């Protein structure tokens, strides 16, 4: 049931079975429709631990998924479980969750410090505890030098970080970030990515959505891919890629003497095709990417080839999404 193997195009990573009895996040055949428009249709999913990127195009249902999880929407079918409890009309599990909504509007009239400490008190902290807590999380996201300034004066990146800070009070076990990098300039993006990676390193469960694939790639390899409200894939980026075995992987190698390299590579049984786009370029088709890459450096080094570049055009998130959504099966 979790995850649903019957899902078309779904790929499952074995290690993702949660260790504890109740997974942090669980969706069981969850659907959500607005009128006649289906935002999410029959998603089954369970997640625990680590940083997970939720990928999808605009409108794929990422925000809807998070809002279902936060009890802001009521599922039209199926059940949602957050730490094993139903979050709809039940705020109790939020005590262990930090949620960063996509919405750009914030309480512009407050300072970041007031913002974070006020919302910390909703966790039941006293005034003093909340103040210490606010200082701690703002320091963590790197806003301690400006935390007494009005949020209205912040740039987008700082606003995002203030939002993240407010979600981090009370040390949540699960942090949900909806498009945290959107609209940020490179500097802010770098900082926020560092914060998220840090959280992952601290052992929190982090869910993060994005539509910019390279961003997720820089943060995590655990991904969930949504498309048109359907679960397309879940698991490790590369594992997913390897499950799509019927599509030959293409590897491009740029070297001095393509033919010579081809001769050495040809002996590998995982290679089932070769192509020479030019005299210094070699295209290799393989069924088993991992095994091929395992052996490739040794072949090159042993045979003293001079390789300028290795390119793997199929092995990025974008192309995976393309395969999955493009109906290649």
């Amino acid at each position, binding site marked *: 049931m979790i995850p649903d193997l019957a899902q078309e195009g779904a790929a499952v990573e074995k290690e993702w079975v949660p260790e504890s009895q109740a997974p942090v996040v669980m969706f069981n055949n969850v659907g959500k429709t607005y009128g006649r428009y289906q935002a999410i249709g029959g998603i089954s999913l369970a997640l625990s631990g680590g940083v997970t990127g939720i990928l999808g195009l605009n409108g794929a249902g990422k925000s809807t998924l998070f*809002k279902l999880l*936060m*009890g*802001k*929407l*009521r599922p039209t079918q199926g059940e949602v479980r957050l730490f094993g409890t139903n979050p709809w*009309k039940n*705020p*109790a*599990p*939020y*005590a262990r*969750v*930090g*949620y960063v*909504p996509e*919405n750009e*509007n*914030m*309480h512009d*009239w*407050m300072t970041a410090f*007031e913002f974070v400490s*006020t*919302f910390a*008190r*909703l*966790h*039941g*902290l*006293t*005034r003093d*505890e*909340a103040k*210490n*807590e606010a200082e*701690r999380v703002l320091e963590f996201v790197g806003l301690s030098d400006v935390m007494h300034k009005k949020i209205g004066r912040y740039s987008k990146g700082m606003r995002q970080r203030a*939002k993240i800070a*407010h*979600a981090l009070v009370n*040390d949540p076990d699960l942090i949900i970030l909806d498009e945290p990098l959107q609209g940020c300039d490179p500097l802010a993006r770098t900082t926020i990515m560092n914060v998220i990676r840090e959280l992952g390193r601290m052992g929190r469960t982090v869910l993060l959505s994005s539509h910019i694939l390279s961003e997720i790639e820089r943060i995590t390899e655990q991904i969930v891919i949504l498309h048109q409200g359907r679960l397309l894939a879940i698991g490790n980026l590369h594992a997913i890629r390897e499950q799509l075995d019927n599509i030959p992987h293409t590897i491009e190698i740029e070297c001095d003497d393509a033919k010579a390299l081809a001769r050495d590579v040809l002996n590998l049984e995982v290679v089932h095709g070769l192509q020479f786009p030019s005299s210094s370029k070699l295209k290799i088709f393989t069924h088993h990417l991992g095994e091929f890459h395992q052996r490739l450096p040794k072949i090159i080094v042993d045979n003293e080839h001079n390789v300028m570049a290795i390119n793997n055009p199929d092995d990025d998130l974008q192309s995976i999404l393309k395969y999955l959504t493009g109906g290649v099966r």
Partner: protein
Amino acid sequence: MSKKERGETIWTSLDRKATAIAEFTMRQYRTRLSTWVVLGVGFLAISVVLLFYIDAMNTEIEAIDNDGDSVDWDGDGYVNGQEFKYGTDPLDIDSHPGLLDPSIEPEPASMYINEDDYDWDYSDASLISTGYDDDGDCRESQLLPSAQDGNSDGTPCNIILIYNAATDTYLIYADPNVDEDPDEDRYGKEAQHRAFILGVGKLGFVFLLSIFIPLFLATGLIRDEMTSGTMQYMTAKPIARGEIFLYRMLGYLAIVWPYLLVVCSILAIVSGFMGPGDQFFRFADLGVWFSILIAALLATLVYGMLFASLGVLWKYGIILALPIAAWELGMALLSMSVPDSSFLRMSIVGWSMSIIDSAAYLVWPDMDMFTAAGAWAGGSGEASIFFGTGNALPGYRALEWAQSDIGLGMGPYATTIVSMVVLLCQAAFFWFIGQLIFKSKEIV
């Protein structure tokens, strides 16, 4: 992280959340210009009425000769009143007190204006014989003793006040020329003072402020946050939506209630010092002011809950709120004219106003008698004339407009308590409905 130390009861943590959201809301409203504009305009409106009150208190009400005895009909130099007193003929130039022995000097006409004020204490009793003929034009006049006792109670030159339980009115049976020329200034100031307190309390505080302030401040309490999306932050915390609703409301009240307290106190103090009477400060009126404050506080609470719930219910909740406000205006006017109408039981303003009416009844038990006296106007008022309005004493009409009886048919204390309980129940009901809707709202 001090997770371990937080082992207190659920109440302390609730309390923390409550103050957090309430403070948050207060601060949010404080930073908005619109809050201050709304509160400022409200204060301005009330102070305009106050200015008119101050002006009225500082203006001498022109004394009117109600019984017409300051004129000298026969032109003998003695005004009618003096001639009445000494029993001479006011129509005969050759009959005046100067011819009496000893000869009496003519008195100035001004002595015969307001020369015979009310001597009653307007006390509340079913049959009271009272009144004193200050200028002696009854006692000293040459009328027969039987004519001096026009109301046939056995005592000449007095007045009897009878409470007619059937019509709930006071009847005044006066002997001729007793208390026939009341002091307009004294009566008018007192009447205007009371009318001001009641009028500004009922229409100014309970209607104008208590409807428009919640309309501006409470309708968006939840709705604005939902449309701007900032509600996302709050609903993602471990706190029930009903609590959010309640605590936001607390924050709103924390702005509105002190504001009402301040405005009410300013008016109470100013009118206490400015008000008529010999005393330095009219302490007794504070009771009425207190009831006005209570009524306004409860009204803002109920309206706040109602409008906030409407805001949660529908994006265009304000459109639903407007007919309600119009209904309440109608009810406010109704409760001032027909206080026992059963329609009032279906309003908020009706219950609030009965709190003020009860307090007024307690503080000014003589109110009914007082208004009756204003209408009687020394015998020349509307009570003595069958049709038409006659000339009631100044201030009578304002008082009549502003005051009303307790409509519930219970004692003042019972009315106050019942009204307050009903208002609180209304607030709780609207809160319950509001949080129920809020709870099942999807926040997109």
